[in-house]
Each structure stands twice: as C-alpha cells, then as structure tokens.
C-alpha cells in the first residue's frame, strides 16, 4: 500500500468522518483517497478554498464531536498555524498530516525535514505544544495515524503526523488491523444545540489575565502529562554501540541502511530513532550506555532536531551533525562514509 493511502485508510478505520483539505504537492493522494472513501462510509469530504478555511472547518467538525482531520504540505501547514493555535487553546481533538517538502518559501516538492522546528515548537502563536509523530514505514504510517485520533481525543489536542514526500510515495506491504478498543473521555464539550442541557461555549478569548494565566497552566499540566506518557522511539543495535546515529522518518531509514553497512565492517554503531518528535524521547538518551562516546545526528535539514538531542544528552555525549537540506535525499553509502570518518577521527575502535 502507498504511504498516503495508508494514512487515509487508517483514518477511515479510526472513525474519522470529516476530512477538509486543499491541494498541495506532495500530499494530493491523501485528499484524493479521502474523496473516494468518505463517500463510501457516509462521511464528509470537502475541498476547502484554502488551507486556512480547511483547518477552520476541522475546528467546527471537531467541536461537533466528529473525528476530523486535514492534510497538507509545508507552505500549506504555515497557513494552518492560526487555526492550530485556536484548536490547541480550545482543547479540541484534530489530526493534521504534514507531508514536509523542501523549503523555505515555495521551495520544491522533494522530501525534506525543514519543518521540525515549526512542528515541535507550536508553529502558531501562543504558549502551546502538540504531539508530533514521525513514522518511518507505511505500516507505521497506518498504525500511528490510527493512534493519533485516540491521542487527540484522550488529551483533547491537535496531533501532527510529520512525514515527507518519500514517506507519502513509498509502497510497502502492511497488515491492516482493527483499532484498539481503549477507553476515551466522554465528549462533554461538544456543541450540538442546547437541548435539555445548559448552553455551552467554546472560546479562547480570556480577557482577565489571571484567568488566562490559569488556562496556560492548565494546558501546561496537560503537556507535562503528555511528556510522561507519549514518548516513543526505536532502538537498533544500540547495546554495544560506541557511536549512535540519531535520525527520524525517512532520514532514519537511510541511517539504518548506513548502520547495517558499517556494522558489516565491524564498526559498533547503532541507531536511535525518535518516533515522537514532541514530546521528545529524552529518557532514551538518558538510558544510553556509557559505551556510547559519540552521537551523529542526521537530518534532511541544516540541523533542527539536534537542539533537542543536545538538550536530552545535556552535554554528556559529544554530538556531531550531518545534514542534507532542500529536498536532497542522501544514499546510505553517503551516511556510511560520514560515520566511518567520525569513527576513525575519534579512534572509537
């Protein structure tokens, strides 16, 4: 199954019944898939007049109590930031897919990881956070998209799935399974007409600064809970590793290929792949064995996640960076050469 189709089918299986979006490459297969499937399952597919309109339609559907999502790519995600800030403050559940392309500006339509900061630092205005997942296979795209709707409902938060053009276009066999039956909080906030109950308000305007501060701390407590409960990562050949490559998404797939190559030459190198980019899997770095002497962060950007790696390691392990921004996709051989050079330079053998 193709990555974009896996996202769409997982959303349908998760019970998403409202999709709103605007065409932008390289994610057009998501709305195309949804336009077919929503009709079959009696859901709503609507192509908005802009990304701004689409995210606000998601807001309205989410406040109606219906599982809702949108998808876009980098410049379109920039346009959605206002709406994301509102959805975060209103504490509404929503799933947002960003198939990251080369930037800044109009950039290009090649796979990139230049939107890490925007995704993990809120992106929109105000003091909010949002869970961000970075799948690295079609199976994971499927599993995480399904999970994202539960996380969104559980914490009443927007959730972002950050992929890139490569993740969207790749075709792999997957196992489709049913959604895990988990208990979710009742949707006692939805607006559906005040029939037999007091009227409800969904709002983020809080003019009293004390009450606004209270709202901010309430959100913060929720984010602390997420920091404890949500971090996910994958470890590959870390047990005896003297050097740890850190990469996510497509870059992690490339890095894994490189690690396998250098392992065959006897280099003790492993891979740590963050799956949640926010909250960042800090604990995985704290748990690294004392054998690990060097971290090499590889990103398809000029270096963004490396900030979080440095925060997570707190200077205990030296960090190096290698990046290919702007839509360039490095081959495993290239990363293997970089690994080898650092290995020899540091006398890690």
């Amino acid at each position: 199954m193709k990555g974009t189709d896996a996202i769409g089918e997982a959303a349908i299986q998760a019970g998403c019944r409202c999709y709103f979006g605007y065409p932008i490459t390289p994610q057009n297969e998501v709305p195309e898939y949804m336009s077919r499937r929503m009709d079959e399952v009696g859901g709503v597919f609507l192509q908005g007049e802009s990304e701004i309109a689409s995210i606000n339609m998601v807001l309205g559907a989410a406040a109606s109590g219906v599982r809702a999502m949108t998808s876009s790519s980098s410049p379109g995600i920039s346009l959605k930031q206002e709406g994301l800030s509102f959805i975060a403050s209103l504490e509404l559940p929503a799933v947002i897919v960003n198939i990251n392309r080369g930037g800044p500006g109009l950039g290009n339509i090649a796979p990139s990881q230049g939107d890490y900061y925007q995704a993990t630092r809120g992106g929109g205005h105000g003091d909010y956070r949002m869970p961000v997942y970075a799948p690295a296979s079609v199976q994971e795209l499927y599993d995480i998209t399904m999970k994202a709707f539960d996380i969104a409902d559980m914490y009443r938060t927007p959730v972002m799935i950050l992929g890139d053009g490569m993740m969207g276009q790749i075709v792999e066999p997957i196992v489709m399974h049913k959604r895990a039956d988990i208990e979710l909080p009742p949707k006692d906030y939805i607006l559906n007409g005040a029939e037999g109950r007091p009227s409800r308000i969904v709002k983020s305007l809080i003019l009293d600064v004390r009450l606004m501060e209270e709202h901010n701390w309430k959100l913060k407590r929720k984010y602390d809970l997420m920091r404890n409960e949500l971090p996910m990562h994958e470890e590959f050949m870390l047990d005896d590793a003297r050097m740890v490559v850190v990469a996510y998404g497509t870059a992690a797939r490339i890095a894994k290929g490189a690690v396998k190559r250098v392992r065959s030459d006897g280099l003790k190198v492993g891979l740590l792949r963050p799956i949640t980019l926010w909250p960042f899997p800090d604990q995985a770095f704290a748990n690294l064995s004392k054998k690990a002497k060097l971290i090499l962060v590889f990103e398809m950007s000029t270096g963004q996640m490396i900030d979080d790696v440095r925060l997570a390691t707190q200077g205990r392990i030296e960090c190096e960076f290698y990046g290919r921004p702007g839509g360039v996709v490095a081959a495993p051989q290239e990363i293997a050469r970089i690994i080898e050079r650092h290995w020899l330079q540091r006398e890690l053998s």
Partner: protein
Amino acid sequence: MKKVYSRPASLKQAPFHYCPGCGHSIIHRLVAELIDEMSLRGKAICIPPAGCAVLAYNYFDIDVCESAHGRGCAVATGFKRAQPDRFVFTYQGDGDMAAIGTAETIHAANRGELITSIFVNNAVYGMTGGQMAPTTMLGQKTTTSPYGRRPKIEGYPLLITNLIAQLNGAAYVVRTSLATPAKIMATKKALKKAFEIQLEGLGYTLVEVLSPCPTNWKMTPVEAFRYLEERMEKEYPLGVFKDITKD
C-alpha cells in the same frame, strides 16, 4: 396585568456591554426572539466574530463557538457538514465578513452552505477603535483614513452583499437597517425568512444589517441613527437582492 414585553429566554440575564446607541444589542434581541419563537434553542449553534460581538456568548443562551477573525463561515461549514440537522449561523462584522474573511464568506456562499450569516455593517472597525473598514464610505473619516476615504488611495467601499447575490449557491440575500422601529421590524422579518430558508435546506442565506456605531462615528446615538438613514442607506441601498423562493 398582561405582560407585553419581556427578555427572550434565549438571552442570558446579563447587561449588554455594548456602547449606548450601538446596534448589536438590538440585533441580539431580534435573533434571540426568533430562536424562541421558532423553537431553535435546542438545535442552534452560533459562530460570533472577532470584533465587538465576540462576547455574544455572554448574552445568547445557546451553544456558541468562537472563531478566528474572518473564519466564521469556514467554522460554520465544519459544524453544518458534521451536523446537517442543526441550525448554524455566523454573526459577523464588516471587517470579518468583507476584508479578512472575504474568501471564506464567498466560498461558503458559493457552495450553498446551509448556514445563515448575519452581517452587521457599521462602516468601521469598532472593537479596535474606529479604523477604516472595507465598507467605510468615500469621504468618511476614520482613525486610519483621517482625510476621509479617497478612492485613489484607499479604494472603494466593498458591497459584498451585492456580490454574493450573484452566486448560484446563495438562496436569500437581503440588506436591512436599524434606522427606525419599522426598519427594525423589517430586519426581524428578513432574519426569520433567512432562518426558514436554512431549515428548508435551500441554500446560503445572508442578512446584512446597517447598524450605527455612535462611539466611533463620534456622534450621539440620535445623530448616529440619523446618519445611518440619511448617509449609509444611500451608499448601501436596502432591499432583497436574491430570494429563490420568489425568483
């Protein structure tokens, strides 16, 4: 003694914060009366704007969802598509409707979204302190058009209601005024018709209400109501611009 006048049940027991002579209080009351009379409270969802009427949720005793500036029609679309059997209306000012939200407004109308927009036109940005609005009239002075609106510099007032009447998705498009008690009653009639057309599922409905803003017009309420009738109604002619139940 027979009670002849009381607060509509759909209005909360809260004093309006609006300035003396402001039209919002009148329009709020008309809407609340209709929600009572048409038994809509149990299915109504209101989307107020960013602007003076953002605080509508303090007054309407119905479900209310705030939206970002200009995004009312998109948020309303989300609600209505998710719950087609509900009654959904936006309440928007001129900046919301005809400047920052022009795209959302026109496309919702063109799709024939089954929502009603109540568009309160007072020709200025009220909440932010009287800046030039898309509907500010030629020659009208505001805090950002201190020499009066000049067509070569600030461009022309946008008659968005007339524009929307051209769209196939629009079912009922009307402009009314609050200038006199008779016109206020005509406004209520227009709102009622718009609500009925939405409930019948015939298309997008829009009621533009010309409304005074004495504070930012720098007038007394009496002067403002006179200005509304003598000046604004000339620039913004009242009337039904589209009614598919008649055409």
